[in-house]
């Protein structure tokens, strides 16, 4: 059986899927299929609040995910910064292990990065309450 090598997904296809799954979101393609900026709303559970999220992606790089609002995100009692973030002030989330190849350009952002963002938000809401991150991961 021949191995089918999955191709890199184009920026247009990435953006198209994001818009298809989140029709109310906004998408800007940067350059000519060089990158994208997506902004949308995510509500991690039925009882959660809604968060404004921004995804910045340039082909050949890892996508960067930010929580635009609420800003600042309130912290758990006695915490000084948000868990699993690259940059606390920018609310730049660490959703996966870059060196472990958990995401690559053959994967749809809308079907990987976005559910992971939602999951981050869910565990963030619980972290506020318990002071402990229950979502797993690596420090």
């Amino acid at each position, binding site marked *: 059986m021949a191995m089918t090598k999955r191709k890199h997904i184009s920026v247009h296809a990435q953006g198209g899927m994001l818009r298809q799954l989140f029709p109310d979101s906004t998408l800007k393609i940067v350059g000519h299929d060089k990158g994208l900026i997506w902004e949308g709303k995510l509500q991690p559970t039925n*009882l959660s609040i809604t968060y404004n999220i921004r995804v910045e992606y340039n082909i050949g790089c890892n996508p960067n995910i930010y929580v635009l609002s609420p800003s600042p995100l309130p912290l758990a009692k006695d915490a000084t910064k948000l868990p699993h973030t690259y940059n606390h002030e920018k609310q730049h989330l*660490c959703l996966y*292990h870059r060196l472990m190849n958990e995401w690559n350009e053959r994967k749809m952002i*809308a079907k990987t990065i976005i559910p*992971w963002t939602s999951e981050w938000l869910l565990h963030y809401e619980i972290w506020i309450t318990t002071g402990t991150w*229950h979502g797993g991961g690596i420090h």
Partner: protein
Amino acid sequence: MLTQEEKKQFSEIFETLGETLDITETQYNAAVSSYGAVGEWLAKPESSLAPYKPVIRPQGSFMLGTIIRPVCDDDDLDIDLVCELTGKNPQWAQYHLKQAVGNRLKVNETYRNMLEEEGRRCWTLMYSNSANYHMDILPSLVCNGYNTVLEKAFSSTALGKDYETLAIRITDKKQNNYYTDTSTENWMKCNPFGYCRWFFATADVSTLRKTVVLSEAINPVPKYSVEKLPLQRVVQILKRHRDMMFNGDEDKPISIIITTLASRAYDKETYIIDALTNVVTNMSNYIENRYDPNTGKFVKWIPNPVNSDENFADKWVEHPQREKNFYKWLNQIELDIQAVVQKRGLQYIAEAMKKPFGEQAVTKTFTTFGEMNRNLRESGVLKMAAGTGILSMAGNIVAAAHNFHGND
């Protein structure tokens, strides 16, 4: 108005809270084996009680499945037990029956040391080795073949509501005939098992898969059940709120009143949040006003569902603070539930729950919720709904494996 999805999630939160408030399987099994040992001791062939075939059976919240842990883990758990004797010496008045049980307990050195001062109706054993609990043992007299009567009433096919046949006779130091009257028809009646049967008839929701095995309730050695009916959870939640509000206060609303009124108001809701909201809104409607010809006044009456002549609120006349506290509590829990239900954001919902139900219990509830979601994702069944990002098992996009990574 809550959407179905919101109701479902609130119910999950309150279900998890209820599980957190419940005693653990270890505590449960420890209690069962402790009173099982008492039962064996009383029934030994050389026991003075042997001719009366003593049986120890749980009653009260332990039997109803509504027992909760104390607010402080160091505080005592109360376990109510009935000691049934089938028949008695014809010479015995209430006093003699009570002493017969007490004396047999005292023959055992361990129990003698654990016995507390004699109660009005009970003997109390204080356990303080691994777990702290009190066991209130209610000496009682039952008819011949009582166990068969009980089993029949608690079989799944029982249709009759003849609770009266389940009544037992008890002793009460405050009765005038306590020392003298040997004819048991003049002794006080009490019907904990009739009440239990009524409670389960009220709590039973046939549309729910979780059928509680009714016959387990009267088993002297009932199996621990993790699953609870919505009404059982609601009662646990109400009692916890009461404990938080009146920790240690003698004039707090009593469990039997809370349980009875909640059961009366319960309308077979399957979502705990619906049940809870309905119960707190409507339970006070089941408090009656009855005219007392002796005083010419109306008194608040909360009838025992299996004996409407018995008023669970009889102490309210003598202790008006108890009535005040009951209404104060009911008003507060209604406000607290409303406040929780109006919040959005798990962090704000949790915050609103901490004062009414206890910080530790709420933290544990949300820890469980977080870990459950992590497990769902790790087993590949957590899915995201397109358009909203809502995660559940019902979404359309599977949340793939990944590791949240380090800090900046």
